[in-house]
């Protein structure tokens, strides 16, 4: 389990990282937390000739409460986010951060790295797609702002240019009468989820659904926005009937594959169940209730 030989370069700034990516050529890779890249390198499925370490770039891991936004530096670790006081009003972020893989991965893995990796089973994509999220990306031509909805192109593929990096993840704080939940079902601690569902609901004064976003994880090449499921709830009273219709629509929206985590049919059933529950929790949270939620595991 030894990686192919590579050279190691420590970048002091994002600008330098971008330059190094250019100089070191096609086979160079950026390393942040390394929680995806290092296992791939050890199994020799990834064979970069050069690694550019961005972990020593100052202030890239800060989490800032900035008026109507929370801004996460690309190097913010999952565990930093889980513990951050700035996400108190956005419980869906806690649901997600607190259950990503195991403690070691959460201590090391980063939000920027996870998004840039664009693994179809990553937790952050589904979660952040339910919120107003944008990404500040830095490249040779300077910075640009990319909306989260436009960021993912395919499995392991984003709109980032080869020499472009995520610098910051900007999340707009949801309204007071908005609540969200992220539920993911995992077989054991250290693995990707079998299926996940993220829901963010905003209620109006009459307790009907003003707006909603429903996103499914692990059941397609990218996280899937279940727009029909959203339509089943939007402007409607949220009750057993509308929730069931939304869950059915989510089942239809999923595009899962058979693998060791489960059969495609099963995964459809699973995400439908998770959507149903996540709606329930999101609504309670939108009403101001405190509800514990997050990842669930086989056996308990």
């Amino acid at each position, binding site marked *: *389990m030894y990686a192919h030989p590579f050279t190691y370069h420590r970048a002091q700034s994002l600008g330098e990282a971008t330059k190094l990516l250019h100089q070191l050529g096609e086979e160079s890779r950026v390393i942040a937390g390394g929680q995806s890249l290092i296992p791939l390198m050890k199994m020799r499925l990834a064979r970069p000739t050069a690694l550019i370490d961005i972990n020593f770039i100052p202030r890239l891991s800060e989490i800032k409460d900035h008026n109507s936004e929370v801004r996460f530096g690309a190097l913010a670790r999952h565990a930093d986010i889980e513990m951050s006081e700035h996400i108190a009003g956005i419980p869906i972020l806690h649901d997600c951060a607190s259950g990503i893989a195991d403690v070691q991965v959460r201590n090391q893995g980063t939000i920027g790295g996870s998004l840039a990796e664009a693994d179809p089973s990553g937790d952050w994509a589904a979660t952040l797609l339910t919120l107003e999220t944008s990404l500040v990306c830095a490249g040779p031509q300077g910075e640009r702002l990319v909306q989260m909805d436009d960021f993912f192109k395919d499995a392991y593929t984003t709109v980032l240019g080869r020499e472009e990096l995520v610098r910051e993840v900007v999340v707009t704080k949801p309204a007071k009468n908005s609540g969200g939940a992220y539920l993911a079902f995992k077989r*054991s601690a250290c693995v990707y989820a079998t299926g996940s569902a993220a829901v963010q609901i905003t209620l109006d004064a009459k307790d009907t659904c003003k707006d909603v976003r429903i996103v499914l994880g692990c059941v397609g090449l990218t996280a899937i926005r279940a727009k029909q499921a959203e339509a089943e709830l939007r402007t409607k009273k949220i009750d057993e009937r509308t929730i069931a219709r939304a869950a059915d629509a989510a089942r239809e929206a999923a595009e899962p594959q058979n693998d060791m985590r489960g059969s495609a049919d099963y995964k459809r059933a699973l995400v439908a169940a998770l959507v149903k529950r996540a709606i329930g929790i999101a609504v309670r949270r939108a009403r101001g209730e405190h509800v514990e939620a997050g990842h669930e595991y*086989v056996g308990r």
Partner: protein
Amino acid sequence: MATTLRTKTKKTKAAASSSPAKWVGQPIRRKEEDRLVRGKGIFVDDQKLMGMLHIRFVRSSYGHAKITRLDVSKAAALPGVVCTLTGAEVKSMVKPFIEIGPDAGQKIADYPMAVDKVVFQGEPVAAVVAETRLIAEDAAELVEVEYEPLPPVLTAEEALKDASLVHPEMGTNRNWHGVFEYGNIEKAFQQAAHVVHIGRLHFHRFSSTPLENNAVIAVWDSRSERIEYWSNNSFPSFAAQFLSPALGVGIDQILMKSFDIGGGFGIKITNYPYMAVCALASRKTGGRPIKWAETRTEHMQASAHGNERTFFDTRVALDKNGVITAIDSRHVDDCGAYPRYEPLGCVIWAQVLPGAYRVKNVRIDVNQVVTNKCPVGPNRGYSRMQQLWFIERILDICGHTLGVSNDEMRLRNYIRKEEMPYTTPNGCVYDSGDYAGMLALGKKLIGWDDWKKKQAAARKEGRWIGMGIGSTLDSGTNNFGQAQIINNFAPFSGQSKAANVKLDIYGEVVVSLGSVPQGQGHETTAAQVVADVLGISPDLVKVKPGFDTEQNVYTGHTGTYASQFAVTGLSAIHGAAVKLCNEISRLAAWALKGKEKDLEFAIGAQGPEVRDRRTKKSINYWGLANLVNVNNAGMPETLWDVTLNCRHVYHAPFQVPDVKRKYGNLTLTYAAQIHVAVIEVDRETFQPKILAYACVDDCGRTINPRIVEGQVHGCTAHGIGAALMENCAYDSDGNLMASTFSDYTPITAMNMPDLLYGHMESPSPFSYNGAKGMGEGGAAPVHTVCAALQDALYSSGVIIDDSHNTGDSIFRALQRAGSGGFASMVRVEHPRPSR
């Protein structure tokens, strides 16, 4: 039968050893812990020897294929590569491994590396040896291999057809066949009130996941013609008996050493093919040490899996009260590509032929087949857990079918406490036990009656809650004579262990173990036993970690397997300690000019000593050791046999079984595990959630309750993982689908329920200390979880027919149930309707 098994313990003259146990039975902290938690453990991969090289295997990506081209030249040319090995070269250097099985099995040519064709994914086809592990890994990628795929044999059904052969030289895939028949089957079925027919049941492949993978360092010294092994093989005597004829080296020239081992659970018994290749690599490089440290993927693909077993055409006869009177069934065991410990598994299950039950008439037709999957190795609960799972499934399926609750079903069928020692239909003697009492304790711990009420209320809400019981026997101290039932030429029988206890020159009490501990706390329990014999404390007993043939404390049975250390290992240690005690007593009587009857063993101001009660004179251990070892002029000739260095070999009291009738006592002790679980299957995610879990164990007199409880926790985790998560599944091309932990998902703390633990003690009449071996109750949760799932889902038309159940498989079973799958699975007849 039972009475012939009683062992007589010789009373010792020494005063101390007849005094009541002070340390045995105490939950003292493990002596090993300080070393291990401080990172001072020494594992094979920690060792670095001068001139050491590293070996890396090139492995087959196919399950079944001809090797059409193999070229190592590019690898050999890489700087830092010292040599390469190919299958053809290995074949020229060794003889195939001996085969335990008779007939067709004898024709298998099992070389430690594939020669012309590969028969499982991960089988080594070549190896490279290099100065560093990194170079070896780079070089392995340069080996060019081309294959021509052959149709893989992947299930019991396919294997029996013999359409594609794993080993053409066998002429069949059937490695062993035998019928185990006891009582009067036909009569029992004729007289039955109910006959339940059960369709195909399947016990899945899973393994153990020791923290430490396999690892070996081998040195084949061309001057001494000795092979020195530092390994984590857990049954070195067995490995040596395979390696010696294969390598053409006298068995006394093969030295085996272990120190700390990071878990084994039986799986490391069959790593000897890799040990063989490492020795050959050492020989080829002029005697340089060769290290092999397996990666996790190599471990998953190509070390060993547990036995997979399929049960066909099961018929169960019951009387009108639901008491099982006969079982008739056909079992096919899948041992993977090579029978490397097999076909012993074809008889070892018979140690628990009727499970915990009184059924007298049993006929089981056993086939073992080879397939294009990883060879199996003994996996905690080896071969017995498959049989126990089968029996437990029968109990639950019959109970549900006849409307008898699962606890009542067990109480009606359990062997009673007062029937102990109980002789099973095939001549095994259950030494002691109170299964009904254990069940009562388990029910009390979990709050069975309360849960019954909650279950009934939940069912009304449409929830699926099941309550299950699993009855597991952990048969320990095996009689190798059962191998003769497999092959009547097999030259093994009985069971033995050696140990040495001495006073060293400065009076230290030193124990050399004849076992190969892998985390079971042998250093601690050995010290407790010796401390009681000598009247000292365990911290004054130095127990050498690990095993070393150079210490001459081995027999042909040496190893740690088959739940036996508390009986065999400790009996050997106790015997050696008693011998030492007697020698000390004789020596001290002379030194103190007193009489042995007046002596007492104690701890004085200068450490352990022997005192004369009458004269108040004393001599400490240093003084005694000094008199024998370095200051022995003037010692009377009558004491010249006193060496203070005492070896003892324990022999278990076994007979060779009656091979024709397949009858005889196959194990000495039977520890038991009764587990009770409450599980809810989520109606929407179909995921099983363990709401409550209780484990009750009885392993006779406990030496150290803390160690026993730890082993019960470990076993339970292993079993819950096996039941709900872990599965060595292959796809239809013969690719292992679970070659990393991401896919195999070994159980983690996040999956574990809180365990309620209960303990009972039914002392064994067959061990000097009343103890029974334990630690192999590994599959107890497999039975228990399946029982609870069956209880939860029976009313929805689901029969739990597999030992591995996930949300996905439950989802699919419920879909099948909707389309009438149930009727084909279970059918009931009433030949003699009850009046």
